[in-house]
Every structure is written in structure tokens, then in C-alpha cells.
């Protein structure tokens, strides 16, 4: 039985247990109850498809659709475009990413000043990372300064970013974390979310929420009973209750 099934059944069982007031539940009892819970395959497939689509695994989604019959809720072609944008940012090719987003939907950057600012900010960071100081200065003046003028709330971040130019050893300065890969990922996720929203798709997959719900529910039930818990989400094994 897949880990997924186990986790979902666990969750359903806990919710049932909350209603009663048993103190200790043995593994035998627990597993018996788990087996009684019915989960539909179609629902599982939808969750998997939702995960693959939101995270952008196009080929996997395509294959899964063929093998399971589950239909994605958005056009898989748009996933490819979206992933191309995300990858471009992750590789530091921000200009390329901007062009792609504008081809996909010109309204996104026109109506999202914060996102646009972060993309411009990333461009500056990349120029600095590549040692192109003069170009960076020119860019900061021509492209970033106006953002600060247009919107005061950007000023603080703007100053932080521009201050990178003041340091000889950029990797060891107070704002050095801007040069981290994590900054690229942050920007990439922001763009990804904006594209998903513009396509009326939720930007977060459902699966993580489900697992979070499981953890929370277990914590709640802990106060009332001792029962077999799933402590390791990656293998979803039931661990015996403490006696």
C-alpha cells in the first residue's frame, strides 16, 4: 500500500478518534480501524496530478494522465512556459525570464509592481555577481532608482541592494545574502506564483497542506490518547504508542 494511502487514512482515523475519549489504542485496533476507512482512487489521483502540475513536472504529468486517466486542471502546455520562466530565473537569466513572462501574459508584470521590482533587483544582483560594476551602476541608476521613486515602500530594499556596489568583497558584506542562490529561488518562486495566479490556478499544491493537517491533527490527538503515530512522513510507518 502506498505511503500516501497510509497517511490519508491516518488523518481520517484521527479525526474520528477525536470524537471519542479512549486513552490508549493498540496498533491492532488502530490498523483495523484504518482498514475500514474508504478513500477513493480518483481523489488520490487528483491530488497527485495537482502536485505534478503545480510543481511543474510536465512530462510526469503527461505520463500520469495517460496511465491513470486523471485530467490536469490546466493546459499542460502552459506549464512548459511557466517552467521555462522559473528555470531562467534560477539560472540567473533574468532578462530572458522577463521576456518569457511578457510573452506568456503581458499583464503580469504590468500589474505586479512588487514582482517587477524583485526581478529588476535580481538583474542588478546578477550584474554585480559577474563583476560588471559599470553596467551595474548604470542599471541601478536607470532601472532601479525609478522604482524607488514610483513606490516608496521599495526604497529600503533598494538601498540594501545598491549597497552591494559599495563593497570590495561582496560575498562577505552585510547584505551578502542577496548573492545567495536562495535569493534566486525566492524570486523564481514569486514569478511562478504570479503566473499560476494569473491562470486562476492555486499557487500551492494541495499535498503539503494535507500533510500539515496530519501533523497538526496528531498533535491535537496526543492530548487525548496514545496511539500509533506517523513520525516520519517520508516512509509513513506507524510507530507503536508509548505504553
Amino acid at each position, binding site marked *: 500500500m502506498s505511503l500516501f494511502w497510509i497517511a490519508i487514512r491516518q488523518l481520517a482515523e484521527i479525526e474520528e478518534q477525536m470524537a471519542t475519549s479512549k486513552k490508549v489504542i493498540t496498533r491492532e485496533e488502530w490498523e483495523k480501524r484504518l482498514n475500514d476507512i474508504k478513500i477513493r482512487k480518483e481523489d488520490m489521483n487528483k491530488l497527485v496530478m495537482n502536485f505534478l502540475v503545480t510543481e511543474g513536472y510536465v512530462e510526469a504529468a503527461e505520463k500520469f494522465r495517460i496511465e491513470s486517466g486523471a485530467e490536469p486542471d490546466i493546459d499542460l502546455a502552459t506549464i512548459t512556459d511557466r517552467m521555462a520562466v522559473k528555470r531562467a530565473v534560477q539560472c540567473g537569466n533574468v532578462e530572458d525570464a522577463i521576456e518569457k513572462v511578457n510573452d506568456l501574459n503581458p499583464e503580469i508584470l504590468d500589474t505586479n509592481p512588487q514582482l*517587477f521590482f524583485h526581478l529588476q533587483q535580481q538583474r542588478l544582483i546578477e550584474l554585480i555577481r559577474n563583476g560588471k560594476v559599470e553596467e551595474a551602476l548604470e542599471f541601478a541608476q536607470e532601472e532601479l532608482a525609478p522604482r524607488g521613486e514610483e513606490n516608496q515602500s521599495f526604497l529600503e530594499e533598494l538601498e540594501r541592494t545598491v549597497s552591494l556596489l559599495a563593497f570590495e568583497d561582496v560575498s562577505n558584506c552585510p547584505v551578502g545574502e542577496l548573492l545567495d542562490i536562495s535569493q534566486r529561488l525566492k524570486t523564481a518562486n514569486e514569478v511562478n506564483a504570479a503566473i499560476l495566479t494569473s491562470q486562476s490556478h492555486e499557487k500551492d499544491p494541495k499535498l503539503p497542506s494535507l500533510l500539515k493537517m496530519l501533523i497538526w491533527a496528531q498533535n491535537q490527538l496526543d492530548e487525548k490518547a496514545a496511539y500509533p503515530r506517523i513520525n516520519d512522513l517520508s516512509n509513513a510507518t506507524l510507530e507503536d504508542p508509548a505504553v
Partner: protein
Amino acid sequence: MPSATVNSRRPIELLSRLASDEPEVKVRALREVKNQIIGNRTKKLSFLKLGAVPAVAGILADSADDVMDSNCDNNNVNNILVQSATVLGSFACGFDAGVQAVLDAGAFLNLLRLLSNSNEKVVDAGARALRMIYQSKLAPKYDFLQRKNMEFLISLLNSENENVSGLGASIITHSCKTSLEQKALFDAGILRKLDSLLEGGSLSQRDASLESIAAIFKNNPEVISKFAGPEIGRPLSSVIDLVKDRYPRTRLLACMCLIVIRNTSPHFLQDLGIKTTLIHILLELLDDPGQVGYEAPFAFSSLIAQREDIQKLALEANAIDKLHHHLQKGPLHPRHYEGILLALADMCSKLESCRSKFLSLQVLNLVTDALTDNSADVRTAACICLKSVTRSIKVAALGAICNVVVDFTTRKSIFIQCGGIKQLVELAKSMESAVRSNALWALKNFVFLADNRLKEDVFSELTASMLSSLICDPEPCVQEQALALVRNLVDGYINSIEFVFAEDGLILGAIGRQLQSSSKAEIGIQGMYALCNVASGNEFHKEAVMHQLFPQTGDKNQSYMIKFLLSNDSQLRTATVWTIVNLTCPSSPGASGRLEKLRNAGIVSQLKNMVNDSCVDVKLRVRTVLGQSMGFGDN
């Protein structure tokens, strides 16, 4: 890459490449312009100034014609159409100057033509651009009453293409104004169509529908009742559900739609639950970053305006605390600032409990800061807010106002513009003495070191007769403030002294009478300083003061001056001696005559007893007088 590429991307360079005959060069240039202007208001402005919009509109026009020509390479033509329409759409996006330029360049009709193109991407680009135009007030008015137009609109709404149906909704939101138009749209079945978009449409379709529905319902109870029918439930329930949607903008638009319905037909949505939900959702939306957060307070205002019951609910939901919290988080976007201030004004417009809450949280300081903001809208909103709060007769409010008006000239003139003086003068007529006294206190601060024009404004509003009767007010605290006000009025510029002589010296006489009869030191102090300031003027002024100090009718020869000089209160002694200093100032011709009078009244000998007064000020000024008197050959 270095300069070569950078230069070829400069706006002027790009514009010249737009004019190229080669389609590929044109397309590349269009894409470059597009990528430079999207999201970048500054670039849009600079391209605009270089005449980019007519250039691109021209390309659109030519290519739209080319579509008809079967010899043309469709691919290239379509590319050009898509890129040029997208560029124009971006110029029009949230940028009125851009919208105007696009309309002036005659691009509107060509964009419309794109809607019937066979290529989906071309249709998309055209519809988007038109939608951007219709989000601006500058868009051309759509005439719904013509059948052809209504049919076209219906075809737009029925389209599978999101951008096209969204355009239909935008047109309604923009152009539907009169009840005739609203009825026409209703009769054409548009509302049902919009409602179906609410249920089954995409995010942008739902948002667009909410706005359109609100436009059709606004101020039209007939349409609302027809649509909602006896079973209020169904169509409205879709809107009600959307109030709790996951997307903030949808929630805001749903709230706004319900508010329109409620304000038009108050008997709908009476449910307490709905009112509370609306309040909570809107207060929550205040936190949203960006446009939604900026517009939320305006929606909140429209919910609570003139409605005491809802204001009360909002107070219980801690609305004032939340609004206050936002004011504290500076710096604020001007639109956000304006909205919050107006929301506070509406909250405090009727209920005393709200005003008390406002004052107890010390929000007043933050609001008065807004009086000097760069944005005129913010300043106006701050004044409206202050006006709303000061409707209270609570003394505390006035006390706070007093501290406001001591300040700089800019704040003072704004205060006047908002009718602040008129209001304070009104309050000075109040039945409650505490209110009168505080109003005068505020006015006193207002004229402190003010320029003559400001003083004249205050004086003409107050009038001499009102001021003199306030000086003789039954309550000592009011008398004191009135005298202090006069003191500040006549201080400074010599012309200001004339105020006390208005209407046959009404005020001067009142001062004299009050000093005569009062036993309180505070009144003596203010009155004496007022006379002191008058005595700093010319001969005429000094003689007039003498007349007050030594009234002709006197069986009691002893002037109250002696009483004051003998007072335990050092301030009173100081004020009195200063007055004598001014009266006996040697540079004035009548000084010796006045000194004689003072001596005859026993004042000079009293002063001699005070050469070692415990108060330094008194001591020094006494010696000044005695020194001055020596100059007249005495002692």
C-alpha cells in the same frame, strides 16, 4: 555585453527601427519596446514623449489592413499585430496619459477589428489592450441603448475567450451610468450572464463580473428587486459566497458589490451576520499589500457612512484600533493614507463613543501630522477627520486642538481653510463654561505670534462685542482665557493694538472693569499684560490705558494697581510693573504727566518699597521705572 547593444536599445534607436520596412526588424523592435515598458512607468513616460504611441498605432493600422491582403505572410502579420497591440495595451495599463495617447492616435477601432481575427493570440492581444483602455475613465463612452451595440456586447460576454468576456464586463463597469442603461442591460439578460460567470468563470471573469454587477445595481432599487425577486437567495448568494473567497481582490469586489446593493435597497442584507462579516473582511483587507489594501478603507467608508448601527458594530470590532495601527506604520502610500483618514472621519462622524476611543488612543497626533503631507488629498482627508472628531463637545477634544494650533503657519492656514476658526468661535458661545474656556484657549494659542492678517480673520469672526462680553463672563476661567486672547491679539505689531479700540473701545473698557472687580490673580495677570501691551503703543494708547487704571469716577482713590503691587503673586506684580515701565517710558511726550499721576496715587512710593523684591523680574523692572523717573528731575 557592452555599449553597442546598450545603444541600440535606446528609445530613439528603437523608434527608428520601428519604421523599418523589414517585418523581422519591426517585430524585434516592437518586442524590445514592449519588454522595456511593461511594469515600467518611467519608461512609458519617456517613450510617450518621443511619440512612440502614434508610431506603433500606425504599424497596427497598416498590419490590420494587411490581414485582408492574402498575399501577405500571415505569420509575420500576426506577430506584428500581437506585438503592437500588446505595446499599446501596456501603454494604457493604469496610465491615463498612455490611454489618452492611444485614443488620440486613433488605435481604438483597429484594436476592435482584432477581435474578429482568426488567430487566437491576436484576439487575446486586442481584447487585453481594449480592457486596459476601459479600466480608465478616459475610455470612450459605450452606448448600450443602440441595439447593434448591445448585441456586440452580448457576443463579447458569450465568448469562450477570458479576455474577450472580461472586456465585455469592463465596458459595462465603465460605461453603465444611468438607470435607463441599467434597465436596458437587465432586459437584455446581461445580469444572468454575469451571474453565471460568477459561478463558473475564472478568477478574472469573476472579478470583472462583480464590478459589472455593482455598476448595474448602483442606485437602482428597481433592477435589484427584479433580479433578486421574492427569494432573495440565489443570485445574491453567489456574491455573498465570494466575500469569503481565497483571493483578496475578489473578496474586496464582492464586499463592494454587497455594499452597493445595501446602500441602494437597505431592506436587503439586513442580517446582522452579513454586516459583521463585511466589517471583518474589510478590516482584514486593510492589511493587504498593494491596490487591494489601498482601496479597502474606501469600501469600508462606504459601508459605514451615515449608518450609526454599523459604526457601532465596527467600533466593537476594534475598527479604530486597526485604523490607528495603520497610521502608525509609516510611510504610507498616499492613497492608503487618504483612505484611512477618511475611514476614521466616517467612524467618528456620529458616535461619541467612537470619538472617545479616537482620543484615548491618541490618534490625533498622527492625524495632525497628515496636515502637512505632500499630497493635497491627504491634507484634505486629515482636515475632514479633524472636523469630524471635533464635533464632540468633550473638553478633551478641545484640549487636544489647543496643542495643535500653537504650531506653524502652514497648519494654521489649513486650519482656517477647514473652517476651524468658525467652529472654535461657535464653541465659544457654548452653554458649558468649560467648552467656552477651552475654545478661547485654542483661539488664544492660534493668534500667538500670528501675522496681522490671521489676527484680523479671528477678530472679525469673534467681533468686539462678543469678546468683551466673554471678558465679563460669569465664569472666571472664561474671563481669564478671554483676557489672555486679547493679550495675544494686541501683542507685536503696533496696528494690532487697534483691536481693543474697536466699537468705541468696548474691549478696553471691559478689561478695565474686570480688573477693577476681580479678586483672582490669574485674571489680574492676563488683564494687566493686555494693558501692558496696549501701553507699549503711542501716546494715545498710553493715555487710554491711564484712563482705565485711574477712572475719573472714583471715591476710591486707591487704584487696584496698589492692590496688585502688594499681591503675593509675583507674576501679577511683574505684569503691573511692566505696565508702569511702558507708561513712563521717557521717549514719550506725555510720560512726565503720567508719572505725576502715578506718584499722586502713591504708586511710586510703593515701588520704592519694592526695590528688593524677592522676584528678580519685579526687582529689575522696579529699578527701571525708578531710573526712568529720575530723568524727570524728581526725588
